[in-house]
């Protein structure tokens, strides 16, 4: 395995991202040292490389990546994984608002709590939150799945159109067009496989507590259900 270390100290996000894109062509793994909660790290990275951000990242970490596997050892700010299409973003700490905003594919994992509007307008892919998720999680969600191991705050699934939000803890309140359903046994098995894969060892009883938030209607604001493609 070929690895390169990039020291982010005294560098701008643009300089770091250019260096990462160049290095990704010749290395299997890139470590960004001293990130100091900098914004926009790894924006637009399209090479399928392993990247470790050795500390906290700021806003829009790994936005629009396509295929990279990103591991952030610290926390992340707003919008980690924003609009990514493929790959993986794993955050060991907590994260701010809009985790996985608008993702088309791939997986975003946050081990601790996250802020508000998790997975807003996401089209596909998977978001896993090890702690609690804030206000309006799944806002205008259009596909994919969000899995929250802890509690989910007010207006969960606000205006959700498609997709599923799995919640292991309390659901404070539902948003418009959202309803709660029980899980099928097959879904529990899928969750177990997925969560174990990302180092969330849950007791069997915990899986029994999961409920899911799904849309009441695919056309909640105008049009007919029959028009839904």
């Amino acid at each position, binding site marked *: 395995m070929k690895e390169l270390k990039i020291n982010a100290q005294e560098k701008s996000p643009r300089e770091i991202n250019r260096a990462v894109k160049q290095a990704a062509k010749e290395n299997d793994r890139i470590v960004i040292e001293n990130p*100091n*909660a900098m914004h926009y790290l790894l924006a637009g990275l399209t090479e399928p490389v392993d990247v470790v951000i050795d500390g*906290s990242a700021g806003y829009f970490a790994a936005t629009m990546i396509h295929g990279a596997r990103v591991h952030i050892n610290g926390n992340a700010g707003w919008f980690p994984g924003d609009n990514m299409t493929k790959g993986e973003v794993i955050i060991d700490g907590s994260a701010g*608002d809009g985790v996985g905003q608008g993702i088309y594919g791939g997986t975003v994992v946050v081990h601790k709590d*996250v802020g*508000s509007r998790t997975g807003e307008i996401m089209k596909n892919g998977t978001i896993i939150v090890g702690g609690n998720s804030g206000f309006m999680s799944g806002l205008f969600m259009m596909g994919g799945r969000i899995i929250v191991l802890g509690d989910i705050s007010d207006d969960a699934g606000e205006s959700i159109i498609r997709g599923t939000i799995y919640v292991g803890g309390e659901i404070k309140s539902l948003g418009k067009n959202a309803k709660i359903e029980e899980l099928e046994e097959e879904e529990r098995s899928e969750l177990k496989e997925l969560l174990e894969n990302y180092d969330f060892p849950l007791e069997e009883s915990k899986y029994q507590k999961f409920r899911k938030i799904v849309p009441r209607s695919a056309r909640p604001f105008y049009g007919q259900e029959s028009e839904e493609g």
Partner: protein
Amino acid sequence: MCGIAGVVFKDKKLHPVGKFMTRMLNALQHRGPDSAGFALYGGLGLEEHEYLLNIEVKEKPGLLEEVKTKVETAFPIESEEIIPSVENYIIYRCKVNLDSFSQLKPLIMDVDKIDNVMVLNGAHSFEMIKDVGLVKDIAARYNTEDKMGTHAIGHTRFSTESIVDRYHAHPFQSYIIPDITVVHNGQITNYWKIRDPLERKGHIFETNNDTECIVHYIADKLAQDYSLEEALEQSVKDMDGPFSYIVGTPNGVGIAKDQLGLRPGVMAENDEVFAVASEEVALREVMDTSDIDQISPGESRAYTI
């Protein structure tokens, strides 16, 4: 956009709070390049009834003397200092001895009547430093790194609605009660609904800036014996728009965030320090940030010493 920050040292002892706040604001510089400001509490060491005035004076023959005469006619000047600033202005800083706090605002309004002169603030228990430009330049100009204190709030400004000048730099201060300041990131969209009742009560607005509206609102609530926590909680219910703001008082710091959570706010706390800011990058300058909390929509937090 704007960056906001606050820090409290829980032991009530003097710490290099100016150095820490300078670092916090420098880390938030990308959120606003127009101006920056500090309210550094607890380190001034003034005697009872002593107040420090910061007066912006244009470099013009005879103008500074006119200001000094105006102040001295009302109250004796105990000490003074001149700090060079930019754009042909100086900051004239003088210490005066008043009979009571109620004389402060009338004195400020009287000095403000002089053309090309503006009193940036008058305070007893905190030092206000605010100016146009970048944090590092302002910090060097005012030696912020040498300032001691117990707690502080600060701001980097990205101007949206109102003018870029020293007076509109944050913190804003109210004189409804002594030594209350606010730094703010966002907009108060029901501004007139908040301002009107305050003006009907006789509170004086100097600008059309919504941050001034917040500081008068909080000061008015504290004057009615609300606790800082209660005032912050009520403000979140009464104010509309995207905002997060930090309040500084002589004995604490608080933060509040709008009900939709449209502006950022994070906090971290340990046995020694309570810190709040727009972003983690500022908290990292004062403490370990392995565990930080996101301030939730509609939430407020405060720490008083």
